[in-house]
């Protein structure tokens, strides 16, 4: 059983950095500036591939693409297809046999 009562827990120490030597350096370290900087440097969303292109594929290939998509590309069949076109992924041999 732990003893109850007032305690002082040492706060987590931040990594010690050398003192800035300019006024701009002091201001740049404020949480306000740092947080606003993060917003500006956020990653741009990637373009979705194959938007607007309709491909007619055999059912077996679509099923194989679905499997590949769920396994390697977070359920995105378009990415899976591009991967196949670029030679990054290979579809199951059974698909080719059934063609």
């Amino acid at each position: 059983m732990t003893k109850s009562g007032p305690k002082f827990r040492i706060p987590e120490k931040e990594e010690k950095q050398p003192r800035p030597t300019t006024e701009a350096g002091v201001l740049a370290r404020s949480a306000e500036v740092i947080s606003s900087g993060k917003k500006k440097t956020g990653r741009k969303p990637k373009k979705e591939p194959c938007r607007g292109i309709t491909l007619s594929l055999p059912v077996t290939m679509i099923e194989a693409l679905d499997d590949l998509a769920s396994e390697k590309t977070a359920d995105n069949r378009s990415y899976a297809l591009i991967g196949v076109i670029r030679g990054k992924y290979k579809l199951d041999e059974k698909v080719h046999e059934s063609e």
Partner: protein
Amino acid sequence: MAKIIAVANSKGGVGKTTICRNIALACHINKEKTLALDCDPQKSLEKFFCTRAERLDAIELDCDVKTEATGLKRDILHRSEKFNRVIIDVGGRDSVAMRQVLMAAGVVIIPTTTGQESTDALEQMINAVEDARGVNEDLQAYILINMAPSDPHDTTANITAEGLATLYENRAVVLDTRLKHRKAWLQSGYDGLAIWEVPSKGESKAAGEFENLIKEFVKKEIL
């Protein structure tokens, strides 16, 4: 040359404005030409002095608002030429304005409560002070334990003070005086009063504690 004293903490709700206005009024009654400067966008210090001016039907000391961070350091130094004491209230976050004030001030009083959240947040504030010392080498930092439990048997404030003194040795001084959590502080805000003006049945404990703080300031040549 004016003594520029900032009351600042990147943590909100630790009693910065309350302490700031009472220090400014204490300087004023001690016949120092005092400027109370409100750099907090909430403008609580200005509101207090407006309430007080309405109550007294007079303006005792200069109270100005400057919430625009650009050029704030230069502005403070320029204004301080006409005064003996400049007491500055800063908003409770690590803003550009707070950093500008820290670069202009000679002393920063950092109020903190005994709560774990407040002591955890002190690390960020002490680092901001250290940064400011890069261009304002002589900046002195004092930690003031505020809103300490009023129970005389409670040891929380002592334990916190000892812990902070060890943790921030060479970076900030923990003041001996502690201000306790008392209703009079709230009353002073409502009515635009200095803590020693709040009516009390007997001797006001809050006023006594604040008087001790001012004595310690004088002894340590902060004021």
